[in-house]
C-alpha cells in the first residue's frame, strides 16, 4: 500500500468513531434552544394571512413564451412553489418542469444585485445618468434596442421610449422560435398562429413538432393530447404519427415514428397528397398538378421512407377524419424550410382540416400590447448594422445573442464595436459580460407586468373565436435585493429622462400599470360603475383578463402556386453527417440554464444530466468505432465542439444531434462550463424566404478524441439488470433496434 493511501476501510473506521464522538459529546443535552432565535412578528397583517398556511396569488409564468397562468404558493412572505391556474385556458391548472423551476430563477444565488458600469458596482442614479450622457448628441437611428419576445404594458412603455428616442431600430430576437412557421402559416391559413385542435383530431401527423416537449405552448398541447388519447372520446382514441430525423419526446409517444432523411419533410407531405389523390380524395387541379411528380415510389427513394409506409399514412389520414398535420422545428430549419412548412400545411387543406382542427384564433383589441414575436432574421439585421458601425448605443433585454448566435456571425466582435452597450439582465450572461452597463432586473416573481400570449388558447364555448386574453404578472413576494428593478420601472425612468412632463404622474411602473388598467376598465370586463379599487383587486386576484378579441379567419383555400419545393441540400463528403441541434423540454434555448433543477432533470429520451451529449445512431457509431461515453469532436466548417457520445437508435443514421442551451461561458455557477454550446458551430446558412438561420443545415464530421467518460444517466446497462433485479427479457437489443421499422 502506498504511504499516503487513506483507504475506504480506514475512512469508515474514522466515521464510526466520529459518530461515537458526536454521540458522547452531544448526548444528554436537549437541543431546545430557548431565547436563541428571533421570532419576528408582522407589523400589520391582512386577515387572510395565517402563519404556516400558504396563500396562492395568481401570476404568469416567465420561463418560456407560452405565457401559462400560474399561482404562486406564498407562505410567511416567501414564494415556495408555483402551480397552474385552473381557470386558465392555456395550461388549465397544469404546469411543466420548466415552469416549476421558476422559483430557482427567483432565488438564484447568481443574480446580479447592483448596476455594474464597466464591471464596477454603481448606484442607479449613476447608471441611469450614464445612459442619459451617452444618448445626448446621438441620433435616433444610432440607437438600437434588442429584445426577446415582448407583450403587454411593458411593451407599450417600450414603444413609447423608442418613439421618444426617435429610433425605429427595435430588433426582436428569439434563439429558438417558430419564425418560419409563422410566415408559412400566414400564407397557408391567413394567420401566423391559428389554434391547433389536437383534442378534436382522430389522427395527428406531426412533422417534427415536439408539441409535448418544447413547441409553442407545450402545456396546452399536452392537455389536448391527453384528451386526444382517451378512448372514451366520441371520436375514439387518436393515432399519432411523428415524422422527424431525431426522435423528440413527442416522437417517443407516437404510435408510429418515421425517421425521415433530414430536409425532405415537405417532399414526404407532397408524396402523401399524391397518394391521397390516388386513393380517391379529390384534389384541386393546381394541387394535383403540383404533386403529380411526387409519386410515393419516388418520394420513398428521396426521403428514405418506404413507399408502402407513405401509402399506409395516406390511408390512415383518409380513413380517420378530421386529422391534423403539424409542421415543427425539424421541418423548418432548412434552406427550403418555409416550402416544407407550406407543403405540410397543404395536407391540412387537402384533408379538409382547416376550420375543423386548424381554427382561427382571435387577437387582442389593443395593438400596443399584442405580442411582438422574435426571430433570428432580425438578429442578422442588427448584426449587419453593428458590423457597419451604424449603432452607437445598443440596449439588450431578454436576449442573449452572444451565446446563441453562431460563431460565424461574429456577433460578439460586432457588438463590442458599439460605443455604449446596456444589458438589462438577471444574470451576468455572455451578452451582459460584453456590455458596458448592466442593469440588474427583478425576477419575474418580484415584478409587475402584463402578458399576452402569442398562441391564444380559448376555453370551450361559443365565443371561442373572439376569445383573447391578457394575463397579469404580479410580485409574489417582496424583492430579495433592494437594488434590482423591474424592467417597467427602468423603462419609465429612462422615459422620464426624455419626457419628464408626460410621465411625472407615474411614480413607478405599478402606478403606470394601475392607471392604464383602470382607464380601460370597460374594455377589460368591468363596468363604469365599478369601484376602481375593487375592480383592480378582483382583476389581480383572477390573474386572467378575458378580452373581446378581434376574430380572425382561416382561409379555406390554398393555392399551390406559392409552392416551389427545392430539393433538400446534399451532404458534403468532408462533412458527411447532418447536425440537428435538439431543443429539449427543460433546457430550450439555454436562457434558464442556471437553474439547477433543469440541469438535474434527466433528458426524457437519453436520461443524461448535467452535460450535453452527441446522439449517434448505433450503426453510424459502429462504422466510426465510437462507443458510448467516447468524447468525440463534432466539427463543422464553422467550428468544433467536444462532448460525450450517446448511442441512440431514435435518430436517422446520417444525422447526429446535440442539445442546445448548454455550454455557457457565464451566467452563473450552475450553467458555466456545463456541456458544449452547439449554437457556436452552426454554419451561417439561412432559410431562403424568411432569412431565418437554418438550424438543421450544418454538416459535420465526427472524430474520436481518445478520451472516454462514464455517462451520467439514469438507465441501467444494456438490457438492464439494475439494483440486482432480474434481467428484463429483451426481444431486440437496444443497439439493434431500428425504430423507423417499428409499429
Amino acid at each position: 500500500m502506498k504511504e499516503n493511501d487513506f483507504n475506504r476501510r480506514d475512512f469508515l473506521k474514522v466515521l464510526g468513531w466520529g459518530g461515537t464522538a458526536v454521540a458522547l459529546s452531544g448526548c444528554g443535552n436537549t437541543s431546545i434552544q430557548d431565547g436563541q432565535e428571533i421570532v419576528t412578528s408582522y407589523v400589520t397583517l391582512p386577515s387572510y394571512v395565517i402563519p404556516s398556511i400558504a396563500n396562492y396569488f395568481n401570476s404568469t409564468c416567465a420561463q418560456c413564451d407560452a405565457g401559462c397562468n400560474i399561482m404562486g404558493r406564498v407562505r410567511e412572505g416567501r414564494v415556495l412553489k408555483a402551480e397552474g391556474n385552473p381557470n386558465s385556458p392555456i395550461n388549465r391548472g397544469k404546469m411543466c418542469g420548466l415552469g416549476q423551476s421558476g422559483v430557482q430563477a427567483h432565488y438564484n444565488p447568481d443574480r446580479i444585485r447592483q448596476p455594474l458600469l464597466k464591471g464596477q458596482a454603481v448606484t442607479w442614479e449613476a447608471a441611469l445618468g450614464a445612459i442619459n450622457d451617452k444618448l445626448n448628441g446621438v441620433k435616433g437611428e444610432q440607437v438600437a434596442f434588442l429584445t426577446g419576445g415582448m407583450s403587454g404594458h411593458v411593451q407599450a412603455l417600450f414603444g413609447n421610449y423608442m418613439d421618444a428616442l426617435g429610433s425605429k431600430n427595435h430588433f426582436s430576437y428569439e434563439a429558438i422560435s417558430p419564425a418560419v412557421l409563422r410566415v408559412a402559416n400566414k400564407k397557408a391559413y391567413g394567420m401566423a398562429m391559428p389554434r391547433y385542435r389536437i383534442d378534436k383530431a382522430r389522427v395527428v401527423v406531426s412533422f417534427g413538432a415536439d408539441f409535448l416537449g418544447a413547441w409553442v405552448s407545450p402545456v396546452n398541447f399536452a392537455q389536448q393530447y391527453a384528451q386526444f388519447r382517451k378512448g372514451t372520446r366520441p371520436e375514439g382514441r387518436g393515432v399519432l404519427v411523428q415524422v422527424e430525423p431525431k426522435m423528440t419526446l413527442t416522437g417517443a409517444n407516437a404510435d408510429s415514428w418515421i425517421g425521415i432523411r433530414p430536409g425532405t419533410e415537405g417532399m414526404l407531405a407532397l408524396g402523401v397528397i399524391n397518394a391521397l389523390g390516388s386513393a380517391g380524395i379529390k384534389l384541386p387541379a393546381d394541387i394535383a398538378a403540383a404533386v403529380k411528380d411526387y409519386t410515393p415510389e419516388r418520394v420513398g427513394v428521396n426521403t428514405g421512407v418506404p413507399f408502402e409506409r407513405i401509402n399506409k399514412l395516406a390511408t390512415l389520414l383518409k380513413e380517420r377524419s378530421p386529422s391534423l398535420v403539424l409542421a415543427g422545428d425539424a421541418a423548418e430549419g432548412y434552406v427550403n424550410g418555409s416550402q416544407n412548412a407550406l407543403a405540410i400545411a397543404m395536407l391540412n387543406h387537402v384533408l379538409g382540416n382547416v376550420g375543423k382542427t386548424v381554427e382561427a384564433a382571435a387577437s387582442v383589441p389593443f395593438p400596443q400590447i399584442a405580442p411582438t414575436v422574435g426571430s433570428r432574421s432580425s438578429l442578422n439585421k442588427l448584426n449587419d448594422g453593428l458590423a457597419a458601425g451604424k449603432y452607437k448605443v445598443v440596449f439588450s433585454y431578454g436576449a442573449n445573442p452572444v451565446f446563441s448566435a453562431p460563431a460565424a456571425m461574429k456577433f460578439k466582435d460586432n457588438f463590442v464595436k458599439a460605443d455604449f452597450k446596456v444589458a438589462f439582465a438577471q444574470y451576468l450572461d455572455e451578452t451582459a459580460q460584453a456590455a458596458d452597463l448592466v442593469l440588474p432586473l427583478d425576477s419575474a416573481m418580484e415584478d409587475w407586468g402584463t402578458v399576452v400570449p402569442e398562441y391564444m388558447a380559448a376555453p370551450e364555448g361559443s365565443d371561442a373565436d373572439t376569445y383573447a386574453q391578457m394575463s397579469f404578472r404580479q410580485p409574489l413576494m417582496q424583492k430579495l435585493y433592494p437594488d434590482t428593478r423591474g424592467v417597467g420601472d427602468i423603462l419609465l425612468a429612462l422615459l422620464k429622462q426624455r419626457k419628464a412632463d408626460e410621465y411625472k404622474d407615474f411614480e413607478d411602473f405599478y402606478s403606470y400599470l394601475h392607471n392604464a388598467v383602470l382607464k380601460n376598465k370597460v374594455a377589460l370586463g368591468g363596468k363604469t360603475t365599478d369601484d376602481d379599487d375593487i375592480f383592480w383587486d378582483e382583476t389581480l386576484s383572477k390573474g386572467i383578463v378575458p378580452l373581446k378579441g378581434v376574430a380572425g379567419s382561416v382561409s379555406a383555400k390554398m393555392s399551390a402556386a406559392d409552392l416551389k419545393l427545392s430539393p433538400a441540400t446534399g451532404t458534403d463528403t468532408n462533412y458527411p453527417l447532418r447536425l440537428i441541434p435538439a431543443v429539449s423540454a427543460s433546457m430550450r434555448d439555454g436562457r434558464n440554464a442556471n437553474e439547477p433543477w433543469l440541469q438535474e432533470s434527466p433528458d426524457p429520451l437519453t436520461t443524461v444530466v448535467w452535460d450535453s451529449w452527441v446522439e449517434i445512431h448505433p450503426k453510424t457509431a459502429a462504422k466510426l468505432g465510437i462507443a458510448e461515453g467516447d468524447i468525440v469532436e463534432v466539427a463543422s466548417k464553422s467550428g468544433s465542439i467536444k462532448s460525450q457520445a450517446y448511442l441512440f437508435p431514435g435518430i436517422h443514421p446520417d444525422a447526429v444531434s446535440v442539445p442546445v442551451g448548454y455550454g455557457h461561458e457565464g451566467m452563473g455557477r450552475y450553467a458555466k462550463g456545463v456541456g458544449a454550446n452547439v449554437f457556436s458551430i452552426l454554419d451561417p446558412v439561412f432559410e431562403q424566404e424568411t432569412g431565418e438561420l437554418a438550424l438543421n443545415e450544418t454538416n459535420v464530421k465526427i472524430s474520436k478524441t481518445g478520451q472516454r467518460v462514464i455517462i451520467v444517466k439514469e438507465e441501467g446497462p444494456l438490457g438492464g439488470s439494475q439494483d440486482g433485479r432480474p434481467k428484463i427479457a429483451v426481444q431486440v437489443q437496444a443497439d439493434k433496434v431500428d425504430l423507423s421499422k417499428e409499429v
Partner: protein
Amino acid sequence: MQHILRLFILLVGLFAGVGSYAADAAPKLTTPDDLGPQIEQPIEFPHFRHAGDAKDGGMQINCMYCHTYARRSMVAGIPPVQKCIGCHQSIESVRDKPRIKKLFEYWEAKKPIPWKKVHDLPDFVRFNHERHIQRFYFQQDRPYQEVCGYCHGDVKKMTVARRQKPLTMGWCASCHMKDHPISAHSTKTGHGPNDCFTCHK
C-alpha cells in the same frame, strides 16, 4: 505505524471538534425544576396583566385573542404589532408607561418587534398547535388556560414567558401514551399518535 498515528490524530481532532461545537452550541441545560432560562425580551410583556385572573389584577383575556393562529395553524403566532395597538390606542391610562411608549415607537417606525423565541423546538420536530387545541379545547371542552398550560405552564402568572416544561421527546411521549377521552361527551378514550413521522417528517 505512521498510518495508525494519522488515524489517531484524526480521531482526536474529531472528538475535540465535535466536543467544542457541542459545548458552544449547547443551550443552557434545563434547570432541575424543569424551568428554562430567563430570557430578556425587547419589551417586558406582562402576561399576568393581560391573561391573569381578575382577583390578581388581570384582565382574563383568552390566550387565543392574541395568539390567534393556535387553533388554525401549526404555529400559535406572535400577534402583529397592529393587534397591540388596536387596544392600546384607546387605553390612555397606561400610555406613558415605558413599555407602552416603546411599543408605540415600534408602531410609528413600522418596525416589527424582535421577540426572542422562548419555546423553540429543534428544526426536525414538527409540533402542531392546531391539533392540540382542537382536541383538548374544542372537543374536550377543557378551559383554555389548562390546555395551553399543558406545555406552556401557568403563563397567566408570568411577565415574559419562561419555559416551564422540558419539551423533550420523552416528555411529549409520556403524554401521548396516556389515554384521553375522545370528547367531552364520550367515555371512549384514545391516546396520541406514537408514529415517528407524526413529528419527524
